[in-house]
């Protein structure tokens, strides 16, 4: 490539945008269904099984969590925009620990921010919500890392709540179609 061409504005433009265009076009390796693995994971609190389903539209991922315990099922959906937009998400029910007396607050909202710590390998979300207990309302911040294994067949989810010193660690394997 001639030095002249390298200095052209077109080249600079393409060099800057092409990876983003390609990234937007290529599906994220997170996309698909992931099934909770009890071995090595923190026990699910009140549930027997959990599937994570990542879908993608443009740069935005959508995470669906399918909880189940026998005949009981619960699903919540959270849009994740790694470009930094804060999503205000309706929360009907707080399913994350059904052993404790803590419930989604009266606003039924959570604010979720997502960003890539390493593109297509580590996705971090920061969630703010208010939980309600017998004594009243309590703000909670939740940091969640979704880490993809090098072979792309395992997903490790590490979650730290501001109200809980012990992180939860959930392992998932990819469900092949």
């Amino acid at each position: 490539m001639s030095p002249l061409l390298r200095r052209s504005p077109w080249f600079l433009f393409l060099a800057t945008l092409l990876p983003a265009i390609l990234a937007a076009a290529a599906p994220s390796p997170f996309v698909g269904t992931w099934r909770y693995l009890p071995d090595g994971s923190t026990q699910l609190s009140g549930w027997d099984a959990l599937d994570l389903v990542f879908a993608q539209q443009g740069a935005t991922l959508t995470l669906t969590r399918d909880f189940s315990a026998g005949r009981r099922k619960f699903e919540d959906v959270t849009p994740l925009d790694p470009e930094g937009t804060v999503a205000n998400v309706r929360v009907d029910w707080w399913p994350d620990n059904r052993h404790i007396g803590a419930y989604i607050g009266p606003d039924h909202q959570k604010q979720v921010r997502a960003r890539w710590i390493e593109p297509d390998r580590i996705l971090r979300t920061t969630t703010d919500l208010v939980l309600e207990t017998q004594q009243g309302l309590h703000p909670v911040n939740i940091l969640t890392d979704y880490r993809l294994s090098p072979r792309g067949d395992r997903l490790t989810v590490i979650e730290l709540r501001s109200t809980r010193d012990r992180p939860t660690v959930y392992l998932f394997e990819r469900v092949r179609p």
Partner: protein
Amino acid sequence: MPRPLSLLGPLLLAFAASALAQPVPRKVTEVPATATLVPLSANWRIDGDLDRHALLISLQGLANRDQPRLYLEYPKNWQWEIVRPLEGFLQQRHGIHFDRLATDDVDDALSRFRPQLKGYVVWDRNVRSSLIVAFTAAGVLDAVVVDDRLEALAQKHGLRKLEDLRGRFRGKSDAEIYQWAYDHYWSRCSRDYYVLLGGPAGEEMQPGIADFGVRQHAFFTDLSANSANPRQLALERRILSQQHPASIVLGWHSYGKDTEGAHTTLVSSYGLKMEGLHNLPNVSFTCQIPFTPGFHFTNTRHVRPGEHLQAQAKVYVAAISTDSMGIGSWTKPGRGRIPYAWQVMMNWAWMNPPALQYFYESRTPNDYFIGGLSGPGYMYPKAIPAAKFPALMADARSLMQQLDLHVLEIMDYSEGNRQIGNTDLTEAVVDRYYHEFPDVIGFVNGYGSARTFALRDTRPLISYDYYLDVHRPVDDAVADLDELMTLNPRRPYFLLMHVREANTVGRVATILDHLDEPVDVVPLDVFLKLAASDQTYRTQYERPDAPIDHNP
């Protein structure tokens, strides 16, 4: 001078209350010196030993019709772990000598109790539900149940075939099978006892309660309460609607057809009392054994009536074990190490006296008994028609007085369970409990966590803030409780925890020993008195927008 009508009112009320009580099995005036004991194997499969067990259980119901004669020693892995402790209790406290036969020895057992039998009923091993119908027929016809493998044995003992269900139900649905049973036997069955012989479905059956059902001429089914089975549900409604007011539904729902929540809601909606489980053993025997002379129920009281306690700025924890004493951790090591409350099955006062006496006499100073579950039996108050509530709760008050119980536990899965929906109480339901139980120390509510809290005069209603799952690792349980203390920063904080059946007291003590913040583990009566002294919890009832799930 009082007017005649003012005297008539209380009399009519007393009559109405007594009319609700089911006939209590007669107690023997003299406990027999000897009874026969048959050990049972651990195989409850249709292609295994179920036929022998079913024969022995039906025989037990008939042999024990007028005298306690036959006791079955269930295997060590049976859910009701008190079979053997109760055996020892009957030997030591009542002087009963058990004449032990060989395991599953149906031949010898038939020889001994032949005079109590009129014949046999043959069930079809290819149609599981035929055995459930056979239990109904057994009680009505005074017959033991046999399959084709045991028919020759029955004939050897000179028994006549009174009913043959082989081939009758092939290709038929359960709705059709039980409709046939209804058409042929229902009119001759009890209106005081109905047996829901559920539990495990498929190739296994654990019909431990069937002896009592046979003894009482009960109708048996495992009909579904699930609206996905409309014909079964319709027949179940028809049966329940014809049972006597406030009568007993023995057994348990079928794990293969519906949920505990759905079926107990249905039973409650008719104002009937669920008395679990499907595998509760030997009741035809124990229901006839009276209390030993001079025995009275005495609870372990830690506070005097009317005593005021003042809470300090700390965390108070109380632990409660429910899920029926006898399938929990009563006999496991560690009991007595920390204060613990145990929910008593109150109807055992008349249905299973030796079992209750055994529990009361083996309690430690740290064991505290409470009443439940929601009333005189297992029921959901949101589903009970308001008009039926007072009479049922009068029954509960009477039992609580007899059993020296001063706290009532409430549970309601009519609109959810511990995963989804809600387990809260409406303000109207809470009003009813406060009205009906003026003398209790307080109420507890929930199974998993719930968020109904109240304090009226000195009687708090506290819901569980924690559910200790049997499989929850100790470290995670410690983190759960630490998190609850963070989420509830005011002190005093009243943390009520429900301990699922098989957790041992020792495990609970270990968890509580490892919490970040020191806590006071106190007896439940002390806990409620303290909760009455400083209301740091918000008064809450079920909200209009609460999530609802009907437990399909």
